[in-house]
């Protein structure tokens, strides 16, 4: 279970709140989509949740553990796919996976099994002896997804996971997401791909200018904004409306 409670963050040297009093709760067994325009605060929220950034105020909880109070316990329950393709460029793919397995304390048998299984599913197993620097964006993304699954985390957090993936890998990713949610685990991901969010998510949140402007299921969103509309149209309407309201100094939805 993941919970963000009234989280706010302003970056050093900026006077704009990247995240402004954000609250959301994701239950076990749920796939939760996080939508919003560029610069809305999605990555900042995920970074606060995974302990990469420190919130100015509010709490980020993972399975009841506050990330800022007991970061190691909280992070050991998370598998995270970041949006940074430049990380670990000096390592070979197998060295990177082995390093992650060491950090999460996986025994030799577990790491063999999971690395073989997931790297085969994402079709990068035969490339594991290569350096990450030689990997394409899509291959790096596959590798980071494999690495995030190694500890078999209760909470899977993914920042723009579809970037660079070929259709087969995207399909594999979506089915793993569904399987994990069905087995009672939490999946929390940000995306710009509306079709994926529409088809996959049990619940979604739309964020704009650091504030949540909608939270609920797609069906609830449709009821609120009108039936027979795609998520893409609803998203555009909502973000535009909230932008205007914020521009007028009024409160958003």
């Amino acid at each position, binding site marked *: 279970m993941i919970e963000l409670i009234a989280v706010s963050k302003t*970056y*050093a040297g900026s006077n704009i709140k990247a995240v402004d009093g954000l609250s959301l709760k994701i239950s076990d067994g749920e796939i939760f989509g996080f939508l919003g325009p560029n610069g809305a605060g999605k990555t900042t929220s995920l*970074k606060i949740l*995974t*302990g*990469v*950034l*420190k919130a100015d105020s509010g709490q980020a909880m993972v399975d009841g553990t506050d990330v*800022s109070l007991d*970061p*190691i*316990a*909280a*992070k*050991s329950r*998370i598998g*995270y796919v*970041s949006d*940074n393709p*430049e*990380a*670990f*460029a*000096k*390592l070979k793919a*197998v*060295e990177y*996976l*082995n*390093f*992650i*397995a*060491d*950090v*999460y*304390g*996986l*025994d*030799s048998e577990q*790491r*063999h099994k999971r*690395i*073989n299984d997931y790297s085969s599913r994402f079709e990068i*197993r*035969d*490339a*594991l*002896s*290569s*350096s990450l*620097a*030689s*990997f*394409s964006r899509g*291959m790096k993304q596959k590798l980071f997804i494999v690495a995030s699954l190694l500890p078999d985390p209760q909470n899977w957090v993914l920042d723009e996971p579809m970037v660079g993936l070929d259709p087969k890998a995207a399909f594999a990713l979506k089915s793993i997401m569904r399987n994990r949610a069905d087995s009672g685990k939490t999946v929390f991901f940000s995306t710009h791909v509306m079709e994926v969010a529409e088809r996959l998510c049990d619940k979604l949140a739309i964020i704009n200018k650091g504030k949540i402007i909608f939270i609920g299921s797609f069906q609830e969103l449709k009821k609120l904004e009108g039936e027979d509309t795609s998520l893409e149209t609803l998203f555009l309407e909502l973000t535009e409306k909230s932008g205007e309201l914020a521009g007028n100094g009024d409160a958003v939805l």
Partner: protein
Amino acid sequence: MKSFASLVKLYIKSFYNLSPFLDLKKLKPAQVLKNLGIALVALLVLVNFGFLFVSVNLAMYWGLAMLGLQNLLFLVSSLTITVFVFVIGFITALSTYYINGMENHLLVLPLAPWKLLAAKFIAVYSSMAAVSMAFMITSMAIFGFYEGPKPLFYLWGFMGALLLPMPPLALSYLFLVPMMSVAGFLRNRRAVMLFTGVLGLLCAIGFNMYFQSLMSKMADTEALSVMMQNSLPLSIAAAGAYFPAGLLWKAMTVPEQAAAFIQSAANLLLCLGTSIVSIFALAGAYTRSLLGFNEESVKRLSASELKGFLGKKLKRKPVILALVDREIKNLNREPVYLLNGPFVIILLPLIMLIVFLAQKEAFLADPDSAKIIELAGSGFAMVIAAAAGAFLGSGSSIAATALSRDAKDLASIKSLPLDMGLFMFAKLVHAEIFVLLGSIVGCALVSLMFSIGFADSLTAFIMALAMASFINLAALWLDTARPKLGWTNPIAAMKQNMNSVIAILGAMGLLGLFSVAAIKFDIEKGMLLLFFGLAPILASLAALPFYKKYAVKRLAELDL
């Protein structure tokens, strides 16, 4: 032409990282202070080079004046500049051949190939022209002081200084472009860095040997004149073969005659012409050689290969070993880090050995040296050994750049369930490996030089290890407090990192104090070991828990 001017500006900004200095209006007080610090270091470097140029020119002038051939100073200066620019220009042109993928973006723009090469040529030329001008100004000042030449002499000198770097730089590209077009293995940033790094080190050693051999004869003008006389036939032959140097020399010898005007005009045409023709002739090949630069292909293993490979590689390690292993791999696989970090442990003793061998006779003949040797016999040699070991041990910059070098991985690292104190401790362990190596090398060399006994060598080694470890921890603390995280080129994390400069200067100051205190107060061996062996170890051990607490807090606060 606007696009060409913009391109030149872009290259110059990328080469020299001038933006923090240029945007003066945007500067905050901390940035102003930092810039002042950088300016101070730059001034120190300038003073160093100034001293080098003045010494070389004075030695050449005195040597030639003894033979009554002081007018040849400009021939020798012109040739020195040409050789220097060819070597350094070649290395600079090679290391800037491909700048971090910038070329990939430029290649898709509608820019004529000649613009790409000419802009890069100008950017490299600008630094070579500055060096050439500095050297020529020194030559002219020394000659002007002793000989009082006519004003036109200076005009031809300035003009020549600007023109001289052009042909050797054009020649560098004439070598480089075909080389890059043919040798595919060199079209890789890592190979280029390694190649230029090794070439640069060899050149530094070569220049050092030349400079030291010249300096060792400074006190003996007769030896200088013999040296100059021996090199004259080569210089005159070179002037006959290499027109720009010969033309400049002739123009400066008779500055007010009509011939000087003609010679300078001819030089202008020759140098500019060579550069322009080379640029246009090479532009197409240069652009083609940039295609696919730094591309790495993924190696695919067969099913049978994979089984053995994964079996061998996937083994469990304790987290601290996994972290140290990662530190070692990250450093060793980046040539910029390797050459400017651990390699110092080999390079510094090598340079010192060259200085010693070149100056050995002069050193032994100097009456002050006898006092040093006498002091060495009375236990001072152990202090030198400890200081040398501690300096080498702490001089690798590994601790002072530890967090800065990790800028690209840090966000991902922070998301892992890792004790950040352990993460930083792994960096300290990595640095300590080189503390150990540096201390061994430094102490062993000095011990051999002064024939120090085993017990004293061991005492020196313990002190070196203790002091270097203390310095290392301070350097790591500095980089934790002020890491340089916003870089695109690894050179910025290591070579252009102020933390590394501060750590080296701090180490020099501290070790200087140690040496002075040890001699001045004639501290006995047991006390030395207590003050400079046990005390730094205890101080480091006592500081470690505070550092850990600080590092954890600091890393949590870092906005990435």
